[in-house]
Protein backbone atom coordinates (compact mmCIF):
# COMPACT_ATOMS: atom_id res chain seq x y z
CA UNK A 1 0.00 0.00 0.00
CA UNK A 2 2.84 2.27 1.00
CA UNK A 3 4.66 1.42 -2.22
CA UNK A 4 1.63 2.45 -4.31
CA UNK A 5 1.53 5.75 -2.45
CA UNK A 6 5.24 6.37 -3.14
CA UNK A 7 4.81 5.51 -6.83
CA UNK A 8 1.76 7.82 -7.00
CA UNK A 9 3.68 10.71 -5.49
CA UNK A 10 6.59 10.03 -7.86
CA UNK A 11 4.36 10.12 -10.95
CA UNK A 12 2.52 13.16 -9.67
CA UNK A 13 5.83 14.99 -9.21
CA UNK A 14 6.99 13.84 -12.64
CA UNK A 15 3.76 15.11 -14.22
CA UNK A 16 4.15 18.44 -12.38
CA UNK A 17 7.67 18.91 -13.76
CA UNK A 18 6.52 17.98 -17.26
CA UNK A 19 3.47 20.29 -17.12
CA UNK A 20 5.61 23.20 -15.91
CA UNK A 21 8.12 22.71 -18.71
CA UNK A 22 5.40 22.46 -21.37
CA UNK A 23 3.43 25.47 -20.13
CA UNK A 24 6.61 27.56 -19.98
CA UNK A 25 7.43 26.52 -23.53
CA UNK A 26 3.89 27.34 -24.67
CA UNK A 27 4.03 30.75 -23.00
CA UNK A 28 7.30 31.52 -24.77
CA UNK A 29 5.85 30.39 -28.09
CA UNK A 30 2.78 32.52 -27.55
CA UNK A 31 4.90 35.54 -26.69
CA UNK A 32 7.04 35.03 -29.77
CA UNK A 33 4.07 34.69 -32.10
CA UNK A 34 1.96 37.55 -30.68
CA UNK A 35 3.65 40.39 -32.64
CA UNK A 36 3.05 38.47 -35.88
CA UNK A 37 -0.61 37.96 -35.09
CA UNK A 38 -0.95 41.62 -34.18
CA UNK A 39 0.70 42.70 -37.41
CA UNK A 40 -1.57 40.35 -39.33
CA UNK A 41 -4.75 41.69 -37.67
CA UNK A 42 -3.73 45.31 -38.29
CA UNK A 43 -2.85 44.54 -41.89
CA UNK A 44 -6.17 42.79 -42.47
CA UNK A 45 -8.02 45.64 -40.79
CA UNK A 46 -6.42 48.47 -42.77
CA UNK A 47 -7.00 46.60 -46.02
CA UNK A 48 -10.70 47.19 -45.51
CA UNK A 49 -10.11 50.93 -45.47
CA UNK A 50 -9.65 53.08 -48.56
CA UNK A 51 -6.09 53.52 -49.80
CA UNK A 52 -5.89 57.09 -48.49
CA UNK A 53 -6.49 56.02 -44.87
CA UNK A 54 -4.31 52.93 -44.68
CA UNK A 55 -0.97 54.49 -43.80
CA UNK A 56 -2.44 56.57 -41.02
CA UNK A 57 -4.26 53.73 -39.32
CA UNK A 58 -1.39 51.24 -39.67
CA UNK A 59 0.80 53.54 -37.61
CA UNK A 60 -1.93 54.73 -35.27
CA UNK A 61 -3.14 51.23 -34.44
CA UNK A 62 0.35 49.86 -34.02
CA UNK A 63 1.08 52.63 -31.53
CA UNK A 64 -2.21 51.88 -29.76
CA UNK A 65 -1.25 48.22 -29.36
CA UNK A 66 2.17 49.22 -28.04
CA UNK A 67 0.51 51.16 -25.22
CA UNK A 68 -1.40 48.09 -24.01
CA UNK A 69 0.31 46.01 -21.33
CA UNK A 70 0.25 42.21 -21.66
CA UNK A 71 0.25 40.00 -24.71
CA UNK A 72 -3.37 38.88 -24.46
CA UNK A 73 -4.58 42.46 -24.12
CA UNK A 74 -2.59 43.46 -27.19
CA UNK A 75 -4.11 40.61 -29.19
CA UNK A 76 -7.65 41.49 -28.12
CA UNK A 77 -7.15 45.14 -29.08
CA UNK A 78 -5.62 44.23 -32.44
CA UNK A 79 -8.49 41.86 -33.16
CA UNK A 80 -10.92 44.69 -32.38
CA UNK A 81 -9.42 46.74 -35.22
CA UNK A 82 -10.99 44.31 -37.69
CA UNK A 83 -14.41 45.31 -36.43
CA UNK A 84 -13.45 48.96 -36.30
CA UNK A 85 -12.26 49.05 -39.89
CA UNK A 86 -15.31 47.23 -41.17
CA UNK A 87 -17.51 49.82 -39.46
CA UNK A 88 -15.33 52.70 -40.63
CA UNK A 89 -15.22 51.53 -44.22
CA UNK A 90 -18.97 51.95 -44.61
CA UNK A 91 -19.39 54.79 -47.01
CA UNK A 92 -15.67 55.46 -46.93
CA UNK A 93 -14.93 54.12 -50.34
CA UNK A 94 -12.63 55.82 -52.83
CA UNK A 95 -15.10 54.93 -55.55
CA UNK A 96 -17.93 57.33 -56.14
CA UNK A 97 -21.41 55.96 -56.53
CA UNK A 98 -22.94 56.02 -59.95
CA UNK A 99 -26.01 58.11 -59.44
CA UNK A 100 -26.40 59.04 -63.06
CA UNK A 101 -28.87 56.28 -63.79
CA UNK A 102 -27.31 56.01 -67.27
CA UNK A 103 -27.51 52.22 -67.41
CA UNK A 104 -30.88 52.13 -65.83
CA UNK A 105 -33.94 50.78 -67.54
CA UNK A 106 -37.25 49.79 -66.05
CA UNK A 107 -36.33 46.14 -65.20
CA UNK A 108 -33.08 47.18 -63.51
CA UNK A 109 -34.93 49.92 -61.63
CA UNK A 110 -37.36 47.32 -60.37
CA UNK A 111 -34.43 45.21 -59.22
CA UNK A 112 -32.93 48.25 -57.54
CA UNK A 113 -36.14 48.90 -55.66
CA UNK A 114 -36.48 45.25 -54.71
CA UNK A 115 -32.85 45.03 -53.57
CA UNK A 116 -33.08 48.26 -51.59
CA UNK A 117 -36.20 46.99 -49.93
CA UNK A 118 -34.58 43.66 -49.01
CA UNK A 119 -31.12 44.91 -48.23
CA UNK A 120 -30.43 44.11 -44.61
CA UNK A 121 -27.34 46.32 -44.57
CA UNK A 122 -29.17 49.51 -45.44
CA UNK A 123 -32.26 48.72 -43.45
CA UNK A 124 -30.42 47.72 -40.27
CA UNK A 125 -28.25 50.84 -40.50
CA UNK A 126 -31.25 53.11 -40.52
CA UNK A 127 -33.29 54.16 -37.55
CA UNK A 128 -37.05 53.59 -37.52
CA UNK A 129 -37.98 57.03 -38.75
CA UNK A 130 -35.41 56.95 -41.56
CA UNK A 131 -36.45 53.45 -42.53
CA UNK A 132 -40.00 54.69 -42.97
CA UNK A 133 -38.74 57.57 -45.06
CA UNK A 134 -36.71 55.13 -47.20
CA UNK A 135 -39.83 53.05 -47.67
CA UNK A 136 -41.64 56.16 -48.86
CA UNK A 137 -38.66 56.81 -51.09
CA UNK A 138 -38.97 53.33 -52.60
CA UNK A 139 -42.62 53.99 -53.39
CA UNK A 140 -41.67 57.35 -54.87
CA UNK A 141 -38.98 55.76 -57.04
CA UNK A 142 -41.41 53.13 -58.18
CA UNK A 143 -43.97 55.73 -59.18
CA UNK A 144 -41.81 58.49 -60.59
CA UNK A 145 -38.36 57.31 -61.66
CA UNK A 146 -39.27 56.05 -65.07
CA UNK A 147 -36.33 57.83 -66.75
CA UNK A 148 -32.65 58.19 -65.88
CA UNK A 149 -32.99 61.89 -65.08
CA UNK A 150 -36.02 61.30 -62.85
CA UNK A 151 -34.09 58.57 -61.04
CA UNK A 152 -31.12 60.90 -60.57
CA UNK A 153 -33.20 63.73 -59.17
CA UNK A 154 -35.01 61.31 -56.81
CA UNK A 155 -31.67 60.01 -55.48
CA UNK A 156 -30.19 63.48 -55.13
CA UNK A 157 -33.20 64.76 -53.24
CA UNK A 158 -33.10 61.79 -50.89
CA UNK A 159 -29.37 62.27 -50.27
CA UNK A 160 -29.90 65.88 -49.27
CA UNK A 161 -32.59 64.86 -46.77
CA UNK A 162 -30.57 62.15 -45.00
CA UNK A 163 -28.14 62.77 -42.17
CA UNK A 164 -24.48 61.88 -42.56
CA UNK A 165 -24.58 58.28 -41.35
CA UNK A 166 -27.65 57.31 -43.30
CA UNK A 167 -26.34 59.05 -46.39
CA UNK A 168 -23.13 57.02 -46.29
CA UNK A 169 -25.18 53.81 -45.94
CA UNK A 170 -27.20 54.70 -49.01
CA UNK A 171 -24.09 55.75 -50.94
CA UNK A 172 -22.43 52.47 -50.06
CA UNK A 173 -25.47 50.64 -51.33
CA UNK A 174 -25.39 52.64 -54.57
CA UNK A 175 -21.72 51.80 -55.14
CA UNK A 176 -22.55 48.14 -54.76
CA UNK A 177 -25.58 48.44 -56.97
CA UNK A 178 -23.67 50.12 -59.80
CA UNK A 179 -20.95 47.49 -59.42
CA UNK A 180 -23.47 44.68 -59.95
CA UNK A 181 -24.77 46.42 -63.07
CA UNK A 182 -21.21 46.72 -64.42
CA UNK A 183 -20.39 43.14 -63.49
CA UNK A 184 -23.49 41.85 -65.19
CA UNK A 185 -22.56 43.84 -68.26
CA UNK A 186 -18.96 42.57 -68.19
CA UNK A 187 -20.01 38.92 -67.87
CA UNK A 188 -22.81 39.22 -70.33
CA UNK A 189 -25.37 37.83 -67.91
CA UNK A 190 -28.63 39.43 -66.97
CA UNK A 191 -28.41 40.95 -63.48
CA UNK A 192 -30.76 38.50 -61.86
CA UNK A 193 -32.46 39.12 -58.57
CA UNK A 194 -30.33 36.42 -56.92
CA UNK A 195 -27.04 37.90 -58.14
CA UNK A 196 -28.09 41.25 -56.70
CA UNK A 197 -29.25 39.79 -53.45
CA UNK A 198 -26.13 37.72 -52.86
CA UNK A 199 -23.76 40.58 -53.60
CA UNK A 200 -25.68 43.17 -51.70
CA UNK A 201 -25.92 40.90 -48.70
CA UNK A 202 -22.21 40.35 -48.31
CA UNK A 203 -20.94 37.92 -50.96
CA UNK A 204 -17.71 39.40 -52.32
CA UNK A 205 -17.06 40.22 -55.95
CA UNK A 206 -14.63 37.33 -56.53
CA UNK A 207 -17.12 34.72 -55.35
CA UNK A 208 -19.84 36.32 -57.38
CA UNK A 209 -17.68 36.29 -60.51
CA UNK A 210 -16.88 32.61 -59.96
CA UNK A 211 -20.52 31.78 -59.35
CA UNK A 212 -21.97 33.61 -62.31
CA UNK A 213 -19.21 33.06 -64.84
CA UNK A 214 -18.22 29.36 -64.72
CA UNK A 215 -14.86 28.75 -66.50
CA UNK A 216 -16.42 26.73 -69.34
CA UNK A 217 -18.89 29.50 -70.09
CA UNK A 218 -16.23 32.19 -69.88
CA UNK A 219 -13.94 30.20 -72.22
CA UNK A 220 -16.78 29.67 -74.68
CA UNK A 221 -17.54 33.37 -74.58
CA UNK A 222 -13.84 34.08 -75.22
CA UNK A 223 -13.78 31.68 -78.19
CA UNK A 224 -16.86 33.28 -79.71
CA UNK A 225 -15.37 36.76 -79.41
CA UNK A 226 -13.55 37.77 -82.64
CA UNK A 227 -9.81 38.50 -82.29
CA UNK A 228 -8.76 42.12 -81.94
CA UNK A 229 -8.66 44.04 -85.19
CA UNK A 230 -10.85 41.56 -87.03
CA UNK A 231 -14.22 42.99 -87.96
CA UNK A 232 -17.10 41.19 -86.31
CA UNK A 233 -19.04 40.46 -89.46
CA UNK A 234 -16.09 39.14 -91.53
CA UNK A 235 -16.60 35.72 -93.18
Amino acid at each position, binding site marked *: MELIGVIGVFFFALFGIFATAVSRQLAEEFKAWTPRFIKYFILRAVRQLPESQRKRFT*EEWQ*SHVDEIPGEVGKL*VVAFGFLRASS*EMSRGLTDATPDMSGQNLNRPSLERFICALNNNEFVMSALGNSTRTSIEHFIVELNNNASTASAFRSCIERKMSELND*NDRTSLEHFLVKFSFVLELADELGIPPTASSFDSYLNGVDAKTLRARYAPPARAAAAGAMRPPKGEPQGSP
Partner: protein
Amino acid sequence: MDKQPRLSSQTLKVLGALISCASDELSGAEIGKRTKLASGTLYPILFRLEGVGWLQSRWEVEDPTVLGRPRRRFYRITRKGAKNVQEVVRDLTPAVGRVAWS
Protein backbone atom coordinates in the same frame (compact mmCIF):
# COMPACT_ATOMS: atom_id res chain seq x y z
CA MET B 1 -26.95 71.31 -43.66
CA ASP B 2 -24.70 70.91 -40.60
CA LYS B 3 -23.61 67.30 -40.16
CA GLN B 4 -24.51 65.80 -36.80
CA PRO B 5 -22.98 62.59 -35.49
CA ARG B 6 -25.09 59.89 -33.86
CA LEU B 7 -24.88 60.59 -30.12
CA SER B 8 -24.87 57.18 -28.49
CA SER B 9 -23.83 56.68 -24.88
CA GLN B 10 -20.41 55.52 -26.10
CA THR B 11 -19.99 58.68 -28.16
CA LEU B 12 -20.84 60.76 -25.11
CA LYS B 13 -18.28 58.80 -23.08
CA VAL B 14 -15.59 59.62 -25.63
CA LEU B 15 -16.53 63.28 -25.67
CA GLY B 16 -16.65 63.30 -21.87
CA ALA B 17 -13.17 61.81 -21.64
CA LEU B 18 -11.77 64.43 -23.99
CA ILE B 19 -13.50 67.32 -22.24
CA SER B 20 -12.44 66.26 -18.79
CA CYS B 21 -8.80 65.48 -19.57
CA ALA B 22 -6.27 67.89 -18.10
CA SER B 23 -3.80 67.63 -20.96
CA ASP B 24 -6.32 68.81 -23.56
CA GLU B 25 -5.57 65.91 -25.91
CA LEU B 26 -5.44 62.14 -25.64
CA SER B 27 -4.22 59.25 -27.74
CA GLY B 28 -6.66 56.58 -28.90
CA ALA B 29 -5.28 54.10 -26.36
CA GLU B 30 -5.66 56.62 -23.55
CA ILE B 31 -9.27 57.35 -24.53
CA GLY B 32 -9.92 53.61 -24.67
CA LYS B 33 -8.50 53.21 -21.17
CA ARG B 34 -10.62 56.05 -19.75
CA THR B 35 -13.86 55.10 -21.45
CA LYS B 36 -13.30 51.33 -21.22
CA LEU B 37 -14.45 51.04 -24.82
CA ALA B 38 -13.13 48.26 -27.03
CA SER B 39 -10.97 49.28 -29.97
CA GLY B 40 -13.67 48.03 -32.36
CA THR B 41 -16.13 50.53 -30.93
CA LEU B 42 -13.78 53.40 -30.17
CA TYR B 43 -12.20 54.07 -33.55
CA PRO B 44 -15.41 54.32 -35.60
CA ILE B 45 -16.61 56.89 -33.05
CA LEU B 46 -13.37 58.90 -33.20
CA PHE B 47 -13.39 58.73 -36.96
CA ARG B 48 -17.01 59.86 -37.20
CA LEU B 49 -16.50 62.72 -34.75
CA GLU B 50 -13.41 63.84 -36.62
CA GLY B 51 -15.34 63.63 -39.88
CA VAL B 52 -17.99 66.05 -38.66
CA GLY B 53 -15.43 68.44 -37.19
CA TRP B 54 -16.13 67.83 -33.50
CA LEU B 55 -12.64 66.41 -32.99
CA GLN B 56 -9.30 67.05 -34.57
CA SER B 57 -6.22 64.89 -34.44
CA ARG B 58 -2.50 65.31 -34.91
CA TRP B 59 0.56 63.12 -34.94
CA GLU B 60 3.05 63.15 -32.13
CA VAL B 61 5.75 65.62 -33.15
CA GLU B 62 8.77 63.48 -32.27
CA ASP B 63 10.46 61.43 -34.95
CA PRO B 64 9.47 57.73 -34.72
CA THR B 65 13.08 56.68 -35.34
CA VAL B 66 14.15 58.70 -32.30
CA LEU B 67 11.21 57.41 -30.27
CA GLY B 68 11.87 53.82 -31.34
CA ARG B 69 8.14 53.16 -31.74
CA PRO B 70 5.30 54.28 -34.03
CA ARG B 71 3.99 57.80 -33.44
CA ARG B 72 0.82 58.28 -31.44
CA ARG B 73 -2.12 60.14 -32.81
CA PHE B 74 -3.62 62.63 -30.38
CA TYR B 75 -7.26 63.68 -30.42
CA ARG B 76 -8.67 66.91 -29.07
CA ILE B 77 -12.13 68.39 -29.06
CA THR B 78 -12.69 71.39 -31.33
CA ARG B 79 -14.51 74.56 -30.41
CA LYS B 80 -17.44 73.44 -32.53
CA GLY B 81 -17.43 70.06 -30.78
CA ALA B 82 -17.31 71.64 -27.32
CA LYS B 83 -20.18 73.95 -28.19
CA ASN B 84 -22.30 71.07 -29.49
CA VAL B 85 -21.53 68.94 -26.44
CA GLN B 86 -22.60 71.78 -24.15
CA GLU B 87 -25.88 71.98 -26.03
CA VAL B 88 -26.42 68.24 -25.75
CA VAL B 89 -25.60 68.25 -22.05
CA ARG B 90 -28.00 71.17 -21.53
CA ASP B 91 -30.73 69.27 -23.34
CA LEU B 92 -30.12 66.15 -21.29
CA THR B 93 -29.95 67.91 -17.92
CA PRO B 94 -33.25 67.66 -16.06
CA ALA B 95 -34.96 70.95 -15.44
CA VAL B 96 -33.99 71.12 -11.77
CA GLY B 97 -34.12 74.68 -10.53
CA ARG B 98 -35.58 75.83 -13.83
CA VAL B 99 -39.14 76.68 -14.59
CA ALA B 100 -40.39 73.52 -16.21
CA TRP B 101 -43.93 74.77 -16.83
CA SER B 102 -44.96 78.22 -17.63
